[in-house]
């Protein structure tokens, strides 16, 4: 597919994920079920415990998938994040088979 390199550039070449705190938060979220809820209820927890920027924190709280990718959340963690936050629209937008409403939301 032409243009693949350009499309993947932020991830595969720039490797923004190596320096973004978003990835540490999402990694921790995989191990700690309370963090998904804290994201909505206690944003100061993240300000106090991670070197996250306000832009990054806002993108997470807003479930802004495009912005999270741009800011350097690793794409695979982006998928995990969508799952853990119950962002069903993410898969619906992709037209993924079996993701058209069979899963209830957890938020």
């Amino acid at each position, binding site marked *: *597919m032409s243009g*693949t*390199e350009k*499309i*993947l550039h932020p*991830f*595969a*070449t720039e*490797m923004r*994920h190596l320096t973004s705190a978003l*990835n*540490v938060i*999402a*990694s*921790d*979220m*995989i*191990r*700690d*079920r309370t963090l998904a809820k804290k994201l909505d209820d206690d944003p100061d927890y993240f300000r106090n415990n991670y070197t996250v920027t306000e832009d990054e924190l806002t993108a997470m709280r807003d479930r802004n998938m495009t912005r999270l*990718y741009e800011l350097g959340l*690793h*794409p*695979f*963690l*982006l*998928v*995990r994040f969508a*799952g*853990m936050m*119950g962002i069903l629209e993410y898969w619906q937008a*992709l*037209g*993924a*088979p*079996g993701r*058209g409403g*069979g*899963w*209830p*939301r*957890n938020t």
Partner: protein
Amino acid sequence: MPLVGAVAAPHSHLQLFTRPAENEKYKEDVQKGRNAMIALRAQVERANADTILVIHDDHFVNFDFRCYPPFALFVGQEAKGSGVTDPDTIEKITGATYRKYEGKESYQSAPSGIPQHMANWEKEKPYVYKVNTDLSVRLLKGLLERDFDIPFTADGTMDGEEVLTTNFLNPKADKKVMLLFTNGYVPPLPWPRRCYKLGQAIREILDEVDDRVLVLATGGMSHYPGTPLYGHVDEAFDKNVLAILASGSGSKLAQFTPDELMQSGNGELVNWVITAGICGDVRCQVLDYIRLWHIGLGYLYWEV
């Protein structure tokens, strides 16, 4: 005769889901993949292995952004994980049995409402495998002796994808496992030439032991989860890889660069390259190649 077999099999959760039900072609393709898995299972049984060395790119369960090594060996006594859907469905499809806990009715790995393999929130895991710990430790020491600075971990958590492949190929958990975790998706990736050499070193060590080891390379092929290319599959790259392996030229996989793997959505090929290094330039039997929604699935075994 320490190496008794080697197979490569996908770990995509799409193999367990056939929805949307109205799409008959999609359902047929999923079933073709399951059939290929069953054929690979027969190959595993014919090999009469006592241990399966599972080479798998960790999906943020053992590795994370606090520490993400290119490779790591598990050296504990027991490995365990959860499935990507409910155990009864998995048993129906794969035949895999699971541990039932007293007083526990649900074997979900996460609360209802999220895909079951997205998190690692439950400590009790229904799929439990005994580990060939002695050989794992011998492998670790042997690799260090051969100048591979392999990290080790005592956390034997298997992610949903790793469990899925093992569900199909070791459904009764009657074979011990060894777990070699890799980085197949977080650039910068390990170089394929290094992966191949790692495989060669593993083979040297396996050649010294009496255990009957079968190698299982999980993963692949082309897919781009989470990126703007989600849903695209580089089928030409995949078919080239399969042709290389079918012709008995697996060492050619060592010539790829990490960038080529990433651009083709084939980071997980590192697992296959290590296995190619273990097996050397022997022909592979490619059982099938199937394109599902966002991924190309390759099923094969090496004629070792």
